[in-house]
């Protein structure tokens, strides 16, 4: 913090005031035109016809179905990713094994690889003609079922929990856990009483990012969900409504989009609160 202020002072002394103003202007303009204006437009369009229209659009069967599917998919992928995310982060921080670095970089694949490609991969594997289909047919029944949508979403959102908690676990180290074990605590007690309290805010932050992404995912889901009213999530429903081009449908698309925005804002709030608390803790600890 002090560093930034100092830098600011030095820069100001050298008459860089104009540059500073220019940079701030550019940032505000960029964020405004790229983020705020489009979102504002959507919200404006959703609310323009009044609350009544908005509510009736929300009550449309397809929209309700899409909302249910979205929440269900997000919830399942959140649970799966939380469990596997903690397990993976644990492996990566507590144990030394061969191929650890490779595993660590593989976790980032979903962030760098187009979801559509992976969805196609799933179809080739588990789809009706897929080579792995006979093995898993009885549980997944992938082609165009809700399980496919869940699978795709899990894939896309896997990195978030891991990436949030790995640095925290690394920074905390193993010392407290060793101490607890030395005093006779078992594995479960160590996890619940030592590890969990130390990483809970980072975990919450990762979980909210995972949820936000799960709610909004389009590409991977698009390749695997084909039946409106059954496996369509809100983003797909918005797209479908908008693509019809009919005036009332477009209005409904904006209404559904607004719903999505509301969900995202809620999660963003949770994430920011978690981040604020994590940061505050760090500042407190820095006062040693």
């Amino acid at each position, binding site marked *: 913090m002090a560093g930034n202020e100092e830098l600011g002072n030095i820069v100001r002394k050298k008459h860089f005031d104009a540059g500073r103003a220019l940079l701030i202007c550019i940032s505000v303009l960029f964020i405004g035109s790229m983020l705020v204006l489009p979102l504002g437009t959507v919200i404006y369009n959703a609310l323009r016809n009044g609350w009544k229209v908005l509510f009736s659009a929300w009550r449309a069967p397809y929209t309700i179905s899409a909302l249910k599917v979205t929440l269900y998919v997000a919830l399942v992928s959140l649970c799966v990713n939380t469990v596997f995310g903690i397990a993976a982060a644990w492996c990566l921080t507590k144990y030394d094994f061969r191929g650890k670095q490779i595993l660590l970089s593989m976790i980032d694949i979903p962030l760098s690889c187009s979801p559509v490609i992976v969805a196609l991969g799933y179809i080739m594997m588990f789809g009706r003609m897929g080579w792995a289909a006979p093995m898993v047919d009885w549980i997944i029944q992938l082609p165009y079922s809700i399980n496919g949508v869940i699978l795709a979403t899990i894939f896309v959102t896997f990195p978030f929990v891991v990436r949030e908690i790995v640095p925290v676990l690394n920074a905390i180290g193993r*010392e*407290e856990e*060793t*101490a*607890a*074990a*030395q*005093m*006779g*605590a078992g594995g479960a*007690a160590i996890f619940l*009483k*030592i590890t969990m*309290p*130390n990483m809970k805010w980072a975990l919450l932050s990762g979980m909210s990012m995972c949820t936000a992404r799960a709610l909004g995912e389009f590409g991977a889901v698009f390749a695997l969900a084909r039946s409106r009213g059954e496996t369509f999530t809100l983003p797909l429903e918005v797209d479908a409504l908008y693509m019809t081009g009919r005036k009332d449908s477009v209005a409904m698309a904006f209404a559904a989009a607004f719903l999505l925005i509301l969900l995202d804002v809620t999660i963003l709030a949770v994430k920011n609160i978690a981040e604020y608390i994590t940061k505050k803790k760090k500042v*407190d*600890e820095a*006062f*040693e």
Partner: protein
Amino acid sequence: MSDIYIKMQEVDKAFHGFLASQNITFGIEKGHIAALLGPSGSGKTTILRMIAGLTQPDCGQVCIAGKCINHVPANKRDIGFVFQNYSLFRHMNIFDNVAFGLKVKKKKKVEINRRVTELLELVGLSNLRECYPYQLSGGQRQRVAFARAVATNPQVLLLDEPFAAIDRQIRKELRVWLRDMIKKLGITSIFVTHDQEEAMELADDIIVINQGKIEQIGTPFQLYTNPKSVFVANFIGDAMKFEPEEWLAGFAFDKQVEQVLIRTENVYVFRMDEKPELKYYNIGIINSVSYYGSYSELYISCQGKSIIARQAGSAEQLCVGEEVKVHIRELFVCFKNDIEKMVNREDV
């Protein structure tokens, strides 16, 4: 040597082929405080962790109270451990930190309360029971770590560099505190340190470690007056090193002597008009004087060498530039694998 409580017998430990401990054998009497003294990376922590059961030895035996405990898991060994950076639980307050071991052992709530209160009183932190570790000073943290380690009444206490994280000024005070506390509780203790002064002050026995091997075991007095290796002579007490040349009056050295060690307390300095009967001395010039109150340190250049001597602070101070007689009363001569004390011809 009747009542050996902690014993290590021919213990080896290697990490990926690197021998961190070789043939470690020692015994510590019940109620004693022992120091594991050695430079950083010499394998002190490894020995401590093997006693605690946090690291498994490759071979050899670890015994407590006459029983081999190699296969007893760490949490069943009845050992208290003060970790190097204390490893306090950062999200728990002081009370919960100290109570942790008791809670794990499923003690009754009333009993936990009583014991923790008693311990916090003992270490003088009763008023901080609601505080978190980050709100404490280094010294207070050490006390919490100590209270936490002895909460379950262990028979053995192990401390890894207990003073490393503490400011110099209060270190001395805490050392005395810690020794009194350990003696009061009567726990057989081993602490790790790289500071010879700390080891001398606190320990009944010192085990000097170098490169994974024990160099010497003994009381502080034995180690200081009778070092068995060049390493120990260098490590315990500050010694000045010289080539074995013939300039030192009153000494003659064999060809095999590789090095000569002189301790400051064996360097005697006299004014030129003092001690006319003195036969064996060198003449030196005082380069600088540092006055510390109870004593002053004289930096003397003598035959092109630099020698440090001490003078009582209350004596009439010698001045920079003054010519003096330098008389060495005794020194250590180092051979390839051996060390020997040698006394000035005049003082034999």
